[in-house]
């Protein structure tokens, strides 16, 4: 059995450290968006909005992400991508080009894949958003996640969440049976390591088993 205890240490992981450090102040300031503290607001405590800086021109938006409702105050410029990563602190969705060219930011909006970098958070008030964190858990992977592991569909992993979100959406889209059909429908996701053959194999495996 593989010993993976070194990556499962709950006390200190790189991700946990970065998330904690980033969520509190720095990342919020960069993104220009602040979470509303529900608990503080519900208690009616003074300074209920103190969970984030007072952003000039911020407007309210309610995002439903992975089945959970988030009431937020955002600068109108905030993209769905920045909001998911920096405010809601779901960092599985990646920022690559930030111009809709690489697909690393792919999430589902009402079950359809989109580039979250070319969409404003404000455009998604009340709609259902799914990120990689909403697909499966480490103990119960989505079949596409399991297939990417089985077929080694990644090297550095940066594009992987976008690839998987795209691949899961592809399962419900009109797509021919061949590898070429899969490649065509996956062309909006770029992998600089070159894991494409294994990604196609993983997707085809899931389609065969569907």
């Amino acid at each position, binding site marked *: 059995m593989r010993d993976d205890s070194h990556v499962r240490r709950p006390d200190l992981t790189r991700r946990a450290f970065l998330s904690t450090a980033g969520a509190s102040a720095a990342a919020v300031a960069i993104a220009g968006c602040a979470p509303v503290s529900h608990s503080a607001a519900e208690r009616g405590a003074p300074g209920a909005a103190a969970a984030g800086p007072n952003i000039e*021109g911020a*407007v309210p938006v309610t995002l439903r992400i992975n089945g959970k409702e988030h009431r937020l105050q955002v*600068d*109108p*410029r905030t*993209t769905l991508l920045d909001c998911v990563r920096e405010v809601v602190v779901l960092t599985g969705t990646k920022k690559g080009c*930030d*111009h*809709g060219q690489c*697909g690393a930011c*792919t999430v589902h*909006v009402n079950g*359809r*894949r*989109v*580039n979250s970098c*070319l*969409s*404003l958070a*404000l*455009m998604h008030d009340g709609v259902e958003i799914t990120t990689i964190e909403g697909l499966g858990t480490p103990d119960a992977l989505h079949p596409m996640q399991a297939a990417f592991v089985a077929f080694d569909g990644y090297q550095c992993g940066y594009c992987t969440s976008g690839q998987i979100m*795209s691949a899961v*959406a*592809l399962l419900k*889209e*009109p797509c021919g049976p061949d590898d070429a059909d899969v*490649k*065509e*429908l*996956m*062309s*909006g*996701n770029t992998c600089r390591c070159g894991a494409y053959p294994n990604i196609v194999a993983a997707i085809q495996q899931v389609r065969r088993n569907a």
Partner: protein
Amino acid sequence: MHTFEFIRPDDAAAAVRVAAQTKTAQQGADVRFLAGGTTLLDLMKLNVETPARLIDINRLPLAQVEATPDGGLKIGATVRNSDLAHHPTVRRDYAVLSQSILAGASAQLRNMATTAGNLLQRTRCMYFRDTAMPCNKREPGTGCPAITGSNRTLAVLGTSESCIATNPSDMNVAMAALEATVHVQGAKGPRAVPIGEFHLLPGRTPQRETVVEPGDLVTHVTLPPPIAGSKHVYLKLRDRASYEFALASAAVVITVAGGRVTRARVALGGVGTKPWRSPEAEAALVGQVASATHFRNAAEAAMAGAKPQSENAFKIELAKRCLTHALQTAATS
């Protein structure tokens, strides 16, 4: 990105009222409609677009595809490109439109991009997209560095001394071949604009790309009834197999009877400053035997007025072969 006021009107009339306050609806607009966002937000991040107000039209009732009383099709402004491409009626009766949309962008972008947004898609000319560079389209009077610079992907038809930027859309090329009509609701009421008159040649005013005026909201596009027995092909040639803009493309809708072409509609993409309908190619086809010789003659006619730049002369022959092959494919399908 410059900040803006985000507005979500209850109806199209309210959207038009707000939009009518912009000083221009062309480059430099201070009020913009927001639909899919795939062009606008991209250009706002580059500071090429700096609107002070964005009007979100995504919740207006403009997302339907429906039959028209005359047997044609009405396509709402916010119908997503993917929904339009996969619509059963479009696949059956307007196949060239379905093919053209699926040849463009990526699956993610097609899920976001809309009919009206694609009609108004902006050029990919690198000088237009880079605010550090001069550009007559972005800043009138500053010059066109593309003419003496990097112009491999730019236009050979419809250019001027001010601008050689290509219209990047695939959908627009099919719309031109299908003789679509663009319906606009404006401050003075609704009007209908044939697709061939909707986009403007750059001339000396490349900052004006369409006939859209302040307050004008594209509400829908209509297609005439399908032509019985017509064959549809969209062929796109590009630097890679997928997810790339056209170097040359051709949309053809032709009818062949008794071995002769009885009707032809031809439009080219990737080579023109606007979606390039070619009446010259159509005239060269009608009445002729549907043969490789006549298809090549049509392609020669289509490109007769082409003007190459320093890096893009190859596009002229490429476009000819593209159109010839598209016609052959259509005639034998």
